[in-house]
C-alpha cells in the first residue's frame, strides 16, 4: 500500500478534515477563555521586539552607540541618563541603550524558553508514556527519579553547577529542560497515559502484533500530546524565571538578558533609588513578568481545552 494510492489519500483527507474540525473546536474554547488569547498577544509583541532588533540595528541605530553589549553614547554628559528622544528608555550605568538591550534580550529569552521546553516535553512524554505502557521496574525507577527532581530546588542545583562549570544560555536551557523533563511532566503524562493504555484500541493494536514502540508512537503519544503542550507553556515560564534569577546574581555567562540588566543596575547601587532611576529596573522587570505571565495564561487557556471539567457550566 503505497502512500500515493487512492485509498490512502482519501483516508488522509478524512483525517485532515477531522483534525481541522477538532482544531476549530479547540480554538473556540481557547478563545472563550479570554486569558489565553491575551497571553498570545503579549507573546506576539515580544516576538516582534526580538525580530525588529536586528533590523533597527543595521538601519536606524548606529551600532557603536546602540550595541546592546559594547555600545556607548559619548554625547551624553552622564550615565545612567533618563529617557530622551535618542534613547527612548534611557541608558544604563555603562552608557548602553536600555531599549536596545531589552529587545536584544527578548531573542535570548525565547531561545532559552523554547529549547528547554522542547527538551523537557520530549523527555517527559517519552518517559511518561513508556512508564505507563511497560510498568514494573521502568515505572518505579522513573517515578522515584521524578520525586527526587521535584523535591529538589532548581536554584540550589543550578548554583552548585554554575560554581563548578562555566554556564551559558544554551547549557542552561538544556539543563533546565532535562531536569524538568524527568520531573513533574513525567508524572502528569504518565497518569494521563495510564488512562490511554487501558483503552480497547491499544489492546487491539497489541493483539494484532504491534511492537511496543509502534503502539507507543501511534496510539499513546498522540493522545497525551495536548497535555504535553500544556506543560510546555508552564515550563517556559519557569525556565525564564530561573535564568533571570541566576543572571541577577551574576552567575551566568550571557551577553545580555533581562536579569543581567537588573544585575547591572543593582551592582551600580541604583536599585535603592527606585523612583529616581526607574528606567533601569522597570522595563526588564516588567518584561520578565509579562512574558512569564503570558506563557502561563496561554497554558491556562489550553488547560480549559484539555480538561473540560474546568469549563464554566
Amino acid at each position, binding site marked *: 500500500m503505497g502512500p500515493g494510492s487512492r485509498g490512502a489519500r482519501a483516508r488522509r483527507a478524512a483525517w485532515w478534515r477531522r483534525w481541522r474540525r477538532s482544531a476549530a473546536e479547540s480554538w473556540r474554547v481557547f478563545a472563550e477563555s479570554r486569558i489565553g488569547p491575551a497571553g498570545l498577544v503579549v507573546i506576539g509583541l515580544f516576538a516582534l521586539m526580538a525580530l525588529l532588533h536586528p533590523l533597527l540595528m543595521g538601519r536606524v541605530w548606529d551600532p557603536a552607540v546602540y550595541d546592546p553589549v559594547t555600545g556607548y553614547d559619548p554625547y551624553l554628559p552622564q550615565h545612567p541618563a533618563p529617557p530622551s528622544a535618542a534613547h527612548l528608555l534611557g541608558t544604563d550605568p555603562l552608557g548602553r541603550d536600555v531599549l536596545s538591550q531589552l529587545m536584544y534580550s527578548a531573542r535570548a529569552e525565547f531561545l532559552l524558553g523554547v529549547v528547554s521546553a522542547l527538551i523537557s516535553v520530549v523527555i517527559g512524554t517519552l518517559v511518561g508514556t513508556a512508564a505507563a505502557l511497560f510498568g514494573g521496574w521502568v515505572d518505579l525507577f522513573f517515578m522515584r527519579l521524578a520525586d527526587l527532581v521535584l523535591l529538589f530546588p532548581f536554584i540550589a542545583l543550578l548554583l552548585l553547577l554554575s560554581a563548578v562549570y562555566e554556564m551559558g544560555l544554551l547549557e542552561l536551557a538544556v539543563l533546565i529542560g532535562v531536569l524538568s523533563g524527568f520531573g513533574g511532566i513525567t508524572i502528569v503524562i504518565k497518569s494521563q497515559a495510564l488512562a490511554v493504555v487501558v483503552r480497547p484500541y491499544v489492546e487491539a493494536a497489541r493483539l494484532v502484533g504491534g511492537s511496543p514502540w509502534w503502539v507507543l508512537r501511534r496510539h499513546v503519544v498522540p493522545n497525551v500530546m495536548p497535555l504535553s503542550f500544556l506543560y510546555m507553556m508552564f515550563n517556559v515560564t519557569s525556565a525564564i*524565571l530561573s535564568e533571570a534569577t541566576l543572571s541577577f546574581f551574576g552567575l551566568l555567562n550571557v551577553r545580555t538578558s533581562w536579569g543581567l540588566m537588573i544585575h547591572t543596575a543593582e551592582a551600580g547601587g541604583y536599585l535603592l533609588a527606585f523612583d529616581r532611576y526607574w528606567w533601569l529596573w522597570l522595563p526588564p522587570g516588567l518584561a520578565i513578568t509579562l512574558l512569564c505571565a503570558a506563557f502561563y495564561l496561554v497554558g491556562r487557556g489550553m488547560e480549559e481545552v484539555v480538561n473540560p471539567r474546568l469549563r464554566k457550566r
Partner: protein
Amino acid sequence: MASFLAHRLVQAVITLLVFMTVTFVIIQAIPGDVTRLYLSHPRIPPEVRQAMAERLGLNRPLAAQYLLYLRNVLTGNLGVSFSRYPTPVWDLVAERLPRTVTLFLTATLLSFWVGFTLGRQLAWRRGSWLDYAATGVGVSLWTAFYPLVALVLMWAFAFRAGWLPLNQFVDPELWRRAPVDANHVFQRLLGNFALAAGVLAAVLWLTGREMTAGAGRLVVRLSGAVAVVAASLAWWQQSGLARFAWDIVRHMVLPVLALTLISFGGVMLLMRDAMLETLREDYVLAARARGLPERVVRDRYAARNALLPVVTSLTLGIGGVASGGIVTETLFSWPGVGQLLLESALSQDYPLVLGAFTFTGIFLILAHVVADLLHAVLDPRLRVRGGEVGAGE
C-alpha cells in the same frame, strides 16, 4: 499507619542515597580532582591538601571513595571552607540551619493559610470583582521576577518608610554591647514560639472538646491566648533580652513577608480550582438542600474536600519555596544556609557549596516525609495501603 510510615521512611532513605550519589557524581565530574582546587587556592597550605587527599581516599578506587564520601556526609565531616579558612564547613552549616528552617516553615505555613482562605472566598464568589482582582494579583505575583518584588518591598517598607530594618539578621549597633550572641537569643525565641503554639493548641483542643460553641468558649479561648502572650512577654522582660529578641523579630518580618507573597499565589489559585470542583458535588447540593447555613456548607463541606489537592501541591512545592528561600536570604543578607550556598558559589568555595547543598537536600527530604505524613493523616485513602483504614482518627 505504622506500615505507611515505615514505607515512607524506607523511600526517604533511598531518595537520600540517590541524592548523595548524584552529588558525588557532580564532584567527580569536576575536571581534575577536588584537591586540585585546594592547590590553586592561595589560602590553603600544601599539607592540608595532602591530608585532604588522605581523608577522601583519593588514591583508592572509586567505589571506596564513594563509601568514604557517604560516611563523611553522614558524620558531618564536610571539610574546611576556602573563604573562611580554617572554619569547618559543618560549623558554618550548623550555625545557620535553624534560621533557614524557621524562615522556610513560617513562610510555608503563612502562605498556605493565606492562600487557602483567599482561594475559598474566590471560589465561593466566582465571577465577582474580587475573583478577577485576586486572580490577577495571584498570577502576577506568581510570575513576577522575585528579586525585584523583594527589592520593592525593601524600598517601600525599609528605605522610604523606615518602619523595618533594610536587611541583615540583627542590628550590629545594638548588639555590640549585648551580653549573649544572636544565636542564643534566636534559640530562646524558637523555644518560646514552640511552647506558646503548643499551649495554644492544647487550649483550643480542650475547649473544643469540653465546651459548646458560643460566647463563653470564645472568651475562654481569647483569655488563654492573651495569657500565653503576656507570659512570653513577661519572661523576655525579666531575662533582660527583650530588646534583642525584638530586634531579631523585626529583621525577620520582611524576608518572611516577601517569601509568603510569592508562594501564596499558587496555593490560592489551586484552592480556587479545587473548590470550584467540589462545589459541584452532590453532597454540597445535599447540604444546601438540608438548609445548612452557607458558612457551614462552604467551610465544612466544600472547602474541606478541596483541601487535599492543595496539600499535595504543598508537598510538590517544597522545592520551590526552598529556591525562593535561597534568593530571599541573599537579597536580605539574612544569614541562612541559602545565603551561604549562593555566596560560596560566587566565591567558588567548593567544600562550602557542597556542604550547603548536601544539607539543603537532607532537610528537604525530611520536609517531604513530614508533608507526606500530614497528607496521610488528612486523607484516609492513602493509609489503606497500610492495611489500617481509619486507624489514625
